[in-house]
């Protein structure tokens, strides 16, 4: 069994997660306090990618899933990707009026 991540790896991961959260906050256009608009595609795509990477980091390092078998890693990654795909589908369907 692979060992626990260790303090250094945990701290690096935490730094990356914090930075990506700040990027997501900026990408969500927090500066627009008076003129709110629909989130542009590039901004939504950036948030989705950052979120997917963050979920991967939390699973693999914080929860030490990297010590599990490839099958279990695949289950959790697939579930994360499915969730992100559903969110992206809802966003795109609404944006391009594909439903209703």
């Amino acid at each position, binding site marked *: *069994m*692979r060992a*626990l*991540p*260790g*303090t250094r790896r*945990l*701290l690096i991961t*935490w730094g990356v*997660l*914090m930075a990506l*959260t*700040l990027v*997501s*906050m900026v990408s*969500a256009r*927090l500066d627009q306090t008076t003129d*709110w608009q*629909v989130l542009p595609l590039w901004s939504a795509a950036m948030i989705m990618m950052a979120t997917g990477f963050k979920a991967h980091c*939390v699973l693999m*390092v*914080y*929860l*030490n*899933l990297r*010590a*599990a*078998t490839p*099958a*279990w890693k695949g*289950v*959790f990654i697939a*579930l*994360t990707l*499915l*969730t992100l795909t*559903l*969110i992206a*589908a*809802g*966003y795109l*369907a*609404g*944006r391009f*009026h*594909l*439903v*209703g």
Partner: protein
Amino acid sequence: MRHDLPNPGWGPLSALPGNPLMWVLILSEMLVFTAFFALYAGQRALDPALFNESQHQLDPVLGGLNTLVLLTSGLFVAFAVEAISAKRIQRSRQWLGAAILLGLLFCLIKVFEYTSKFAAGITPETNVFLVFTMV
């Protein structure tokens, strides 16, 4: 039975690190949230104008701040696991105590956020978007 696995005797869960029941909880949570987001995506696709309009009723700074708090409390719990695996019980308790304090901070931020929302007349009953984001 393979004894090189982290949790021999737990069937398929035996290949997962740590307590297998924790993974049952994590997998259950993920499945619930996947279903939740499927419902959210469907509702958003049906009424994107309402969802876009309602987004400005959220406080993204407080939401982002709470994410930072959760990421840090998760780090502290991971530190606690590292400490207990090195038989440093007192240090592990300290990290868990710090994580609990951040959990309380998370709740305080939520109370502050919701109090201001309720004062402005915004509740989960206002519209379907706020049901998803506030409940």
